[in-house]
């Protein structure tokens, strides 16, 4: 049995054996951010895999692990650690990201803004495709890991996240502006998503396979060029249906095939992720020090 298949089976088994319910911070999307923040004191651990199937370079399996913590109701902070394995090539650690999301407005509005600021220290070997900006294209994946990992990028990424929850639907729009701290122009990108639970009302019995535990949605993401040339052309764009299964109170399993929509896109990507939430992690830490 291949390593990717073993990892996928492990994630499925992990999901199947955990049995607690869903929390507010859980998000369906892989690329798009919604305005739903992590609950105060909760820690979410989320390993994710991306399988890339390029035509002009080797297949790859990239991984990022998220540690998301709700500092308080309006501030969520997150650390990402990333790596990848390319077929007929090596496995490499590609870097880390530290992101912060701030929700400036109290209460729920028709459109809810969230401000996102992230620092990235990642190499060109990064293949997680957590966002698509500028003129990102399939050609970025050509080259050996040893060549690509030698180029390190220190970047600041900002996002304006707009989200709405209405009648069970979540609609989220992200405008992305990313700046390499070396001398490079701002790069822009977008991500939009819409999702809904399969069933809106809950049933009284505890259940694992009922419609309320499944969310379906779709997201679109792509690049918008740079400050010097803002355009939709010459960049890559993707459409990705998503299905999430709330396995239990703290575990959510997500899968998403993504299809390239432009000549510069990879033809196919498959993402799988599992998130495990530790409720009131802050309280548990306090108990340890008492």
């Amino acid at each position: 049995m291949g390593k990717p298949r073993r990892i996928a089976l492990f994630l499925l088994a992990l999901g199947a054996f955990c049995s607690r319910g869903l929390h507010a911070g859980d998000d369906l999307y892989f690329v798009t951010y919604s305005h739903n923040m992590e609950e105060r004191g909760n820690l979410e651990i989320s390993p994710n895999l991306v399988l890339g199937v390029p035509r002009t370079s080797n297949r790859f399996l990239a991984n990022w692990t998220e540690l998301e913590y709700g500092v308080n109701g309006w501030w969520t902070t997150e650390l990402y650690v990333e790596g990848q394995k390319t077929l007929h090539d090596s496995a490499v650690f590609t870097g880390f990201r530290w992101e912060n999301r701030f929700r400036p407005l109290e209460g729920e509005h028709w459109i809810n803004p969230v401000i996102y600021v992230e620092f990235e220290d990642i190499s060109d070997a990064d293949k997680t495709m957590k966002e698509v900006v500028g003129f990102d294209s399939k050609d970025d994946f050509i080259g050996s890991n040893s060549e690509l990992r030698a180029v390190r990028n220190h970047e600041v990424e900002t996002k304006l996240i707009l989200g709405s929850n209405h009648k069970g639907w979540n609609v989220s729009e992200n405008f992305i502006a990313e700046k390499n701290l070396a001398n490079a122009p701002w790069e822009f990108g977008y991500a939009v998503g819409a999702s809904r639970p399969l069933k809106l009302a809950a049933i009284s019995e505890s259940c694992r396979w009922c419609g309320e535990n499944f969310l379906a949605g779709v997201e679109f993401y792509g690049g918008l060029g740079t400050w010097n040339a803002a355009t939709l052309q010459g960049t890559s764009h993707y459409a990705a249906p998503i299905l999430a299964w709330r396995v239990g109170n703290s575990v959510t399993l997500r899968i998403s095939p993504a299809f390239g929509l432009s000549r510069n896109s990879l033809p196919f990507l498959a993402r799988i992720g599992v998130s495990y939430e530790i409720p009131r992690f802050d309280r548990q830490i306090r108990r340890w020090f008492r």
Partner: protein
Amino acid sequence: MIWHFDGRRTATASIIAAWALCLMAVWAAAARKPGKQEEGPAAQLSKAPRWARSLGNPYQGQAEAAAAGKKLFQQHCAECHGPDGRGLEHAANLHSPLIQNAPAGVLFWALRNGRLRKGMPSWSALPDQQLWQMVTYVKTLK
């Protein structure tokens, strides 16, 4: 179509502007310390708009909905409000007359909006039906 922007100065200005915007947002959020009168759940519930007060609970009195609400309560709320809803740490006691006498629509509004500055999350990610089921359950705690 391609738009051309000129100059490094504009780019530098935009970096500064983006950071200033973020810092302002953080400052604004941090500066919004509520006064003493605003601190309690009573003050929060009193902020509910008129339309929320007039909302009727579509599941009122339905035992099946209350049972579903209990399940949802245990999943989402028990961590802070306690498994019996009597409140832990700073979370409100849901058996209190304040909560029990509040109109159902006000509780629905409070669940949907949360109190982010006080740590109560917004549950707007849940469908309205599930919020009403939770309200139905909370009203059975009398």
